[in-house]
């Protein structure tokens, strides 16, 4: 019955034509994501471009949508904002946040001033689904909320020389991988008297009722173990080439950095877009916005970068209520070879990981469940779970929990299967999806208003004597982010921004940073005074003074990877 309903629901969803504006009351399969991207591209051909980034292990295409207004310049002339999601195949609502963001920006361009400005200001690179195989299998196959997370690179978990030969199986054919339990008077669990769908631990002296057997499945390879070698495991978010560590140190790392073909393709895509200064990577779950570093030994970030993150993070906490702005290694756990370590260090960007959805919001009596309770790993049935079941029963009419039913297992004999479905626990129900995608896309839009925006102001041209002129130049940054991240400066990742002065028949005699404009104090550069490497601080300025000798005019040029290029021709005559 449930299987038939699920099949019907899937058919209905597939029958829906994807139209702009996009709807967010259902989840998009991989194919539907592609349709949605094509629909956005077709509806806004001027503002968008659809690219094939590369292919996954199973040959699915990874798509990227670029949003850029050519009227305000080519993409590389602006800061790049990169947003992706679903690098873990099961974390699907991340894809919907990306689609919603694109939909929000495009359908409101020219209608809302703030949206119009933020579209004009930046170039957006949006990859809704990174782990395309994982998402496809998560939709198509029976799953738990946590399976099909990794890349489709086979791995011999049980070291028997066979690859991925014994994963979980949907033995009762209901479309879900739930839990198996067996009657056992010596077991450590018994039925919860408050709700017979839950089990609680037996107290000393009490008689047991159940033993939990683990995920639904059989012993496919006949080795006496059940589900011991399932699909994968390379974790797409441990396979990036910065601070990568091999699998015996970091589980899921892959044999070498960028072993994942899609991961490699995305890395190349990003490295080919040097203007990317802000990165969002969406995951589930827990309700967090995480910044680096992702492991302790990396040390703390430069203070200048922390200031930027704190500004963004503290505002985002208000935009998405209940979400916390945290530090990855300190507040969560250490990881190596993370995506955002790559983007922070090798792309030279700021990066935030959005952990979408808080299961606590599935309330029945209106009080959010206590987080502590939910996170306790060893807890059996808790008040939190009882409340989630009430939510499931009375708000979702039983959609997310499969009641225990008996099944004749080839190995164990009479067992029962039941429990939470794959669409539970880590994903909001579609009726709650709209709120989640809107608020989190708003976090991106808020951030995109603070990318570096540099203005060049020649605020003094003064004749000293004869052909010798003093020219003062000010670079002002109206964004919160500096034009080059502090980590980039520290690592010497690439040539910082360049300020140069040239002119036909004009010689730059000297030039340097004006450290005190009133006192005329200048830190002159000994060699090549016509070229200066610089960083324009966030919400700040930097001033230069040049001594030039000649007639006519000079060209002042500011060139930045992230903040575009500005040129200005300045006549050598006294400014009024």
């Amino acid at each position: 019955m449930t299987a038939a309903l699920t099949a019907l629901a899937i058919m209905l969803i597939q029958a829906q034509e994807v139209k702009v504006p996009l709807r967010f009351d259902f989840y998009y399969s991989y194919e539907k994501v592609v349709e949605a991207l094509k629909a956005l591209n077709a509806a806004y051909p001027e503002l968008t471009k659809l690219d094939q980034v590369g292919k996954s292990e199973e040959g699915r295409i990874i798509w990227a949508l670029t949003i850029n207004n050519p009227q305000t310049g080519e993409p590389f002339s602006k800061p790049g904002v990169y947003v992706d999601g679903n690098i873990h195949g099961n974390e699907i609502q991340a894809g919907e946040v990306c689609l919603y963001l694109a939909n929000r920006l495009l359908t409101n361009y020219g209608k809302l001033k703030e949206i119009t400005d933020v579209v004009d200001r930046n170039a957006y690179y949006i990859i809704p689904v990174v782990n395309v195989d994982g998402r496809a299998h998560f939709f198509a196959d029976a799953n738990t909320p946590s399976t099909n997370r990794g890349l489709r690179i086979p791995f011999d978990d049980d070291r028997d020389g066979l690859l991925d030969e014994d994963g979980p199986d949907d033995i009762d054919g209901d479309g879900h991988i739930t839990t198996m339990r067996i009657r056992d008077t010596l077991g450590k669990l018994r039925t919860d008297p408050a709700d017979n769908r839950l089990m609680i631990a037996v107290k000393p002296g009490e008689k047991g009722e159940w033993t939990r057997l683990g995920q639904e499945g059989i012993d496919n390879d006949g080795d006496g173990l059940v589900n011991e070698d399932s699909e994968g495991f390379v974790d797409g978010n441990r396979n990036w080439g910065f601070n990568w560590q091999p699998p015996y140190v970091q589980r899921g790392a892959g044999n070498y950095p960028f072993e994942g073909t899609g991961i490699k393709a995305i890395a190349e895509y990003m490295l080919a877009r040097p203007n990317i200064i802000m990165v969002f990577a969406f995951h589930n779950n827990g309700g967090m916005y995480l910044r680096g570093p992702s492991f302790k030994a990396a040390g703390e970030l430069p203070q200048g970068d922390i200031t930027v993150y704190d500004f963004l993070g503290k505002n985002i906490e208000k935009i998405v209520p209940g979400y916390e702005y945290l530090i990855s290694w300190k507040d969560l756990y250490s990881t190596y070879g993370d995506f955002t370590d790559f983007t922070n260090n090798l792309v030279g960007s700021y990066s935030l990981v959005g952990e979408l959805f808080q299961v606590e919001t599935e309330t029945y009596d209106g009080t959010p469940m206590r987080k502590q309770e939910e996170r306790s790993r060893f807890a059996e049935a808790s008040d939190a779970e009882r409340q989630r079941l009430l939510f499931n029963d009375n708000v979702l009419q039983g959609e997310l929990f499969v009641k225990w039913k008996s099944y004749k297992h080839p190995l164990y004999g009479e067992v029962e299967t039941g429990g939470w479905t794959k669409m539970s626990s880590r994903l909001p129900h579609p009726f709650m999806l709209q709120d989640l995608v809107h608020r989190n896309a708003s976090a991106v839009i808020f951030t995109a208003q603070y990318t570096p925006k540099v203005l060049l102001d020649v605020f003094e041209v003064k004749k000293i004597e004869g052909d010798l002129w003093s020219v003062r130049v000010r670079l002002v940054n109206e964004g919160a982010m500096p034009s080059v991240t502090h980590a980039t400066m520290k690592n010497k990742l690439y040539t910082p921004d360049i300020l140069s002065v040239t002119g036909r028949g004009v010689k730059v005699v000297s030039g340097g940073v004006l450290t005190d404009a009133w006192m005329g104090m200048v830190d002159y550069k000994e060699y090549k005074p016509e070229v200066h490497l610089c960083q324009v601080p966030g919400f700040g300025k930097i001033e230069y003074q040049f001594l030039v000798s000649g007639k006519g005019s000079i060209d002042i040029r500011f060139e930045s990877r992230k903040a575009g290029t500005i040129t200005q021709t300045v006549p050598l005559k006294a400014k009024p």
Partner: protein
Amino acid sequence: MIEIGKAGSAVPAVLVTANMTGTTPLATEAALSLASRIAADASLTSTRTWYIVPLGNPDAYARYFTKPLYTDPGNATSFNDDADDQTDEDGYNDLNGDGFITQMRVKAPDGIWVPVEGEPRLMRRADAAKGEKGVYKLFSEGIDDDGDGQYNEDTPGGTNVNINFPHLFKSFGKRSGLYPGSAPESEALLKFAFAHPEIAMVMSFGSTNFLLAPPQGGRKGSVDTDNIRIPREIGTAMGFDVTRTYTMAEIMEMVQPMLPPGMTADESMIASFLGLGAVVNPLPEDLAFYNEISTDFKEYLKNKGVTEERFDPAQPEDGSFELWAYYHLGLPVFTMDIWGLPKPKEEKKEGSGITIEALEKMSADEFLALEEEKVGAFLKERGAPAQYSATMVIGMIKGGQMKPAQMAAMMKQMPPPKKDEKKGDPKETAIVAFSDKQMEGKGFVPWTVYKHPTLGEVEIGGIVPFAENTPPVTMIDSLLDLNLPYLFELVKRLPKLAISQVKVTEKGGGVYQLEAWVTNESYLSFPTAMGKRNKVPAPAIMTLESEGIEILSGKKRTPVNEMGGMKSARYIWLIRTPAKRTIKIKLESKQAGNDSEQIIIGG
């Protein structure tokens, strides 16, 4: 890459690479010669496949055949070394047109160099502590092409392939590349090695020599697996005493009962669970075979009549191919540099005549037999702090507070003694000596005056590039004849697994115990200790093939995860069969060979 062998990936293979820096011409010669020796000898290819990469860094090596000659391990990608507004804009310039990039010396007020006494061709640092003032500044030969006040700071060339591998990769290092495997040359090797699990041994020709100088330990960051501290959070939850330390074996024993059935605690699991981090020193079991083989190789050289003392080979660089092959593939890795600069004969040894190695083996009595004067001279040579006087040390040994071996261990911890500054760099001295004797002086360009556009009057001269690691062509054949045959001895030590004994015992009621002994018939363990830790070498799999039997205990496919050199282990199954059956026991390992036995059971 050259592949030699008849059976391809069906038999254990040796991966040979050479010249990963592109700056070791002799390495490529060695690999090519090795290939032709293998091709000519059928016994080397009957059960073995060879994958030979004679030139791991072709772009850098191409520079060896162009003028002017200079050493640079970067491949042909461009890289902005000085992170300025131009790329590859300030390379070397052959100012004197002699075809070599050597050095420039110029007299300057802030010079720190002075000529070496007795060898004015060479330079040494002035010792300010002894009241010396520097005379010269040294630069590499060239002009300031981009006018930024620096000389040759952005030479053409990108990534050094040999430091672009993932073990201890140095981010943002000079010539290290953007990320491990970012160079196409290293990426190709990463992919090749993992696509060929039959590779059982790695050899590499370059500037290191694990046969003479086994890979060194002592790096900070490696966890001492005999003294593991359990993190408080995990430890208290699992019932460990977090105030003490545990050995790896103790932890495995304690963790085992907490694991789900069928799961076995092993080192790799514990290390990753406790976050012990990457292994950065060779594991002790592996060091043991490295040291034994090294002793054997030195004996081999001695028997071949090699008496000349040579300079120690280089230690492997972080991010290098050879370190990666050991730490990440978990394979035995042997490297060779084929030739080392001979040490010039020292005119009569003055001083104590005591070495740390000798001290290590001395008994207390032998030590006390030394004269106080000699002990004092020894302490001075080693740069021991002043409070460790000869009298005091002798007193401690006499009183039994310290043994000579302990003293040796302490001295090993101290910074190495300062070289005799007055003599200059011993290696440079040796190059010049070798050049004079064996190369008709062609290894050195005499200093000659040159009018430099920005530095004024300079002198150009110095050691010719490659003189340090490349002997004259006439020496190559005999060096290869001396060194290469030993590699074929090493291959014989590869682990070889076999089923050495099979036995059936009737238990009654149609139930039988089947036991099979698996033996590693060779010297090297399967896999290395590092391979056990990283679990990259696939286990050998023992399979039972038969119709109509029931396995009551034991698995149909049993992984043989490890087998020490010359060791055996027993595997047992309990089998029920109503009638007489033939069981085929198959043992299959990509790295250590296949074997099978048949046995009749039941009836």
